[in-house]
C-alpha cells in the first residue's frame, strides 16, 4: 500500500512538475546535444591545467548507475577516436568517466596539441542510441 501511495505521489508530482515547467521553461528547439562549453576549438592554454566545462541540451545529467529516461553522464575523450558505440565506454587515461554527475572536470595536459571530445553514456556507461557526442576540438598547450 505504501509503495502504491508513493508511486501515485511520484506520478502526480511528475505530471504537476511537467505542467509547471511548460508554463515558463521550454524545451530547446532541437533534440538533445552535448558540447564543450570551454575551452573553444584552437584555444591556447598555458601550462595545460584547466577546467573543462561540459554542456548538455535537451537532456539531464544523472550519476552512473541511475537509470532514468533522458539522462546520462559525461565522458571526456582525450587524444582518441570515438570508441565502439554499442558497448561500455573504456575507462582509461584517454577515456575519463564522470559518473558522479560532474559537469566540469579539472584536466591537466602536457605541452603540445591535444584533442578533446565529449561522449554521453547511459547508466551502464554505454552510449545512447543514437549516440550523443560533441564535435572534437583541438587545444594547444604551451609550457
Amino acid at each position, binding site marked *: 500500500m505504501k509503495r502504491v501511495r508513493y508511486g501515485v505521489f511520484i506520478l502526480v508530482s511528475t505530471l504537476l*512538475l511537467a505542467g*509547471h*515547467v511548460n508554463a515558463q521553461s521550454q524545451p530547446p528547439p532541437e533534440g538533445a546535444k552535448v558540447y564543450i562549453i570551454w575551452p573553444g576549438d584552437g584555444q591556447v592554454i598555458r601550462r595545460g591545467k584547466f577546467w573543462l566545462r561540459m554542456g548538455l541540451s535537451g537532456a539531464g*545529467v544523472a550519476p552512473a548507475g541511475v537509470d532514468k529516461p533522458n539522462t546520462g553522464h559525461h565522458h571526456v575523450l582525450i587524444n582518441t577516436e570515438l570508441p565502439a558505440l554499442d558497448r561500455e565506454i573504456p575507462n582509461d587515461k584517454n577515456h575519463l568517466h564522470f559518473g*558522479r554527475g560532474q559537469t566540469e572536470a579539472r584536466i591537466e595536459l602536457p605541452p603540445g596539441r591535444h584533442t578533446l571530445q565529449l561522449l554521453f553514456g547511459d547508466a551502464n556507461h554505454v552510449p545512447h542510441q543514437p549516440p550523443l557526442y560533441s564535435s572534437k576540438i583541438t587545444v594547444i598547450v604551451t609550457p
Partner: protein
Amino acid sequence: MQLIQRTARAVIPFVTFLSIGTVASAQQHSHAAQAPSPPAVGRRTPAPQDAYVYIGWPNEGQTLNAGRIKMWFGARNIGVAPAGVTFANTGHHHLLINVPIPPLDEPIPNTKNHLHFGAGQTEAYIDLTPGTYTLQLLMGDAEHVPHDPPITSKRITVHVR
C-alpha cells in the same frame, strides 16, 4: 455563492504551482505518522567541500532581447543528479527569478519564480518579457531541500528590452 466561485477562480491558477508543495508535505506527514521525524535542520544534506554553482550565461548586468533566453548552469566540485535520486555529493539546480533565497530548512517552493530542474538539466530556456530581473541559482538535494551550507550562485541582474 458567487463570491465563493469568484474566489475559487482566483485561487485555482495558484493551486497548480502550490500543489507540488502540498503533495510533498502530505508525503512528509505520512512519514511523520510512521516515525517521529527528526528536526528539519538535521535532515539537510551536507554540502561537498568547496562546492559552488554559478550562472555561466547570461552575465551580470547584461542586456538581452525579450523572448526565449538560454541560460547555462555551472557546478563545480558537486555533481548533478535528478530529483529523487540520493547520491553522495550531488544535487539539482533551481533558478530563482526576482526572489530572495527561500527558507533553507524546507523544500524549495515550486512557483514561477522558483524553477526546478529536477530532470538533471544543466541549461534552460526561459521566456522573459521586457524589464529588469534578478537571477540566482540554488542547489537542492534529492528532496529539493538546500544543502548545508546552501550552495548558491551570485545573484545577477539582467535587463530585457
